[in-house]
């Protein structure tokens, strides 16, 4: 048995399918790939797959990963990506296959890009800076134990910001993201709405999954 880490991106049309749908797409592609994938044992055998961290509906992922197993220790990793890609939707693309170095539950943070676009507001940048300069920015955080008030300032105040053109802003932010929970980058959009009445188009991309020391998982 050999553990294999599959690196992929989920972009374009595939952004709009749920995590569960993604697992089905992957299972079908792995089945058709002809690779020696390992099935769980028992009454209802399934292809063994463990995903690092589910992506929310609508969020792109660029350096996502999942683990599978090969039944043969010596199975080569060359050519594996092509074999899977041949059966995946166009917007789910495997771009790397490695032997895992870190455990998936060692993921502690993720880096996100948020692209904000609004009609004719060069003020977008000022408004965001102003928002965090004023003090606590609280939004409702939806958790397992119900909703509660949550100050997002410590997480977002230091984010990177770049103007890409009129009314178009690229933000970069690192947020907690682990099996025990995380901070959803979408909370920023909620804050902009409730504090500033702004509803820009916000496209969120998870760029990288990070360990405790901010290095990328490998």
């Amino acid at each position, binding site marked *: 048995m050999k553990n294999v880490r599959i690196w992929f*991106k989920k*972009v*374009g*049309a*595939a952004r*709009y*399918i*749920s995590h*569960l*749908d993604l697992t*089905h*797409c992957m*299972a*079908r*592609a792995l*089945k*058709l790939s002809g690779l020696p994938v390992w*099935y769980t044992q028992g009454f209802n*055998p399934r292809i063994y797959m463990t995903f690092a961290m589910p992506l929310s*509906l*609508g969020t*792109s992922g*660029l350096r996502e990963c999942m683990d599978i197993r090969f039944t043969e220790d010596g199975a080569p990793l060359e050519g594996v990506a092509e074999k899977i890609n041949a*059966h*995946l*939707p*166009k*917007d789910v693309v495997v771009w790397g296959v490695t032997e895992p170095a870190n455990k998936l539950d060692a993921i502690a943070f993720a*880096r996100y*890009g948020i*692209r904000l676009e609004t009609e004719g507001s060069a003020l977008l940048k000022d408004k965001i800076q102003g928002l965090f300069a004023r003090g606590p920015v609280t939004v409702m955080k939806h958790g397992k134990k119900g909703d509660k008030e949550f100050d997002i300032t410590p997480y977002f105040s*230091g*984010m*990177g*910001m*770049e103007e*890409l053109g009129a009314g178009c802003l*690229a933000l*970069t*932010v*690192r947020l907690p993201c682990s099996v025990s929970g995380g901070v959803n980058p979408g909370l920023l959009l909620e804050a902009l709405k409730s504090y500033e009445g702004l509803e820009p*188009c916000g*496209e969120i*991309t998870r*760029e990288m999954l990070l360990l405790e020391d*901010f290095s990328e998982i490998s």
Partner: protein
Amino acid sequence: MDLQDKKTSELSCDLHDNSDKNERKLALSHKILMSVEKPGRYVGGEVNAVMKDPSKVEVRFAFCFPDVYEIGMSHLGIKILYGAFNQVPYFWCERVFAPWVDMERQMVEHNIPLYALESGDPVGEFDFIGFTLQYELSYTNVLRMLELAGIPLRAADRKDLHNIVVGGGPCACNPEPLADFFDIFFLGDGEEVDLEVMELYRQCKKEEKGKEEFLRMAAQIEGVYVPALYDVAYNPDGTVRSYTPREGAPAVVKKRVVLDMDSAYYPEAFPVPMIEVVHSRIAEEVLRGCIRGCRFCQAGFLYRPFREKSIDVIDAQCRALCASTGYDEISLSSLSTSDYSRLNELIDRLHQWTEKDKVSLSLPSLRVDGFSPELMERIHSVRKSGLTFAPEAGSQRMRDVINKNVTEEELLHTVDVAFTEGWTRIKLYFMIGLPTETKEDVLAILELGKKVVDAFYGNKEKPKGKAVEVALSAAAFVPKPFTPFQWFGQDTMEVLREKQRELTGNVRSRRISVSYHGAKTSFLEAVFARGDRRLCAVMEKAVEMGLHFDGWDDQFDFDKWMEAFEACGIDPAFYANRTRGLDEVFPWDHLDYGVTKEFLKAEYERAYKGLTTPNCREKCANCGALCYKGGLCVEKREDMV
């Protein structure tokens, strides 16, 4: 934070731009997609979706399914025709589904025209706009989709050889309530006739012919009905006097039949939805038609003759579809798969590789007399969770009237076997409002339910420690064209409600539950099933009033529908509840599905006498479908020689 330096934000810019150079454009913006319930319905991009270069195709066909993505993507017909059209290099067929109400609102608000999933191009740019007509209550969605596409609803307002609106499917057997909106209806199997019409269009386009000439020529192709070429006259009492063809159109339009199922086109691949749909599995059509002439069942008459595929062909097609989709379930589809003549042999053959490949087999429905523990062992079913059968009527008398040749004994034997095998939940489907039905017949539904419960308690090998649950479901009967009950006046809604009350008010066991389905929707279905061209005005009015998704309980608005009828001065009861004279001319009499009106009349009379008619395998009843010279009709005769 170390992240926030210049370098990473440059990198992030880069990363944000995840558009491959050849990335397919999405027709809708991210913001709109994020504002609706299930955005995955609207983005396409599935495995096996067919992409072509629009500059290299000559005819573009928008295949429209007038319901949501999850339902349309589970429909077999669209998969067959999508594959058949796209096989031709210069045709490109794309899929279009009805946007759910939340998305429809967004599209209207933002002025976004209805688009095709593959290219994202507006439907208004297509040569053909084709609808599959499965269900009368999807008609408003058809018109709504044309409206969203920005296409004039009435065929007469579309003057050019472009945006040809066509329709096929079971409801095309009486398409009159839609006649003013469509240019062409296809009768019968579409695999061949649709392509012939597309080819004709291509020629006409090349020769710069006009739409009228194209339609005149199309009407000469067997299976093509061009409604505009028929003048309708009515009698003073409102019934149809005559249909008169014009400009050389045939007096009677015959349906098309693909006789040899083995050589008929069947796709080797079809788009695999990225999101969960109603049926996430392979559908392999094992036969077409049905040998049983249940008198209420339109499909049973429309799809005659009964034709099977050979085991070799089914096996090869299943292998190809497994290899192209990655699905792990194959449904052996048809109207009545248990009637496949060599079902056990077929399953044996498929099992030679499906088990190894971890693929399971399923049957869409089970006949009461087609159930055996061996069969259940070998096909996938929701193990132990519930079994469903359709005796259709509670009393034997009633079952004889409708020619559902199932006996109480068979049903009780079957459930007994099922209990022994460990099932405890049984669901039984019935109809109420059937011709000649009495109160006793209705109450017999409950008695049958009770007998099933008793069978459970009388079974010594029943599962220990579990209670039996019997769910009885009663739908209101809708008389349909091309059935022996096409003359029958549907029970009024009051009568149906009274019968529903009889059912729900007399349940004597806590192990039995009763549910019934809408008298109002059935009424509307009955109006449109046997309607004529004058209903086009009502359709138009209904759409104008915002009616759509009538098949969805949460969208159906009966009062508004009645307003629409009223506004057009049309009495819906004339169509639904009136018992028709045996010599009445029907709005579908000029359409020929092989089964003769004389045969249907004879069956209608036999029904009222409680006489059953044997199935095609037992004895040919000479229904008329022999005229196609194929399928079981001919095989039987060869046997006899």
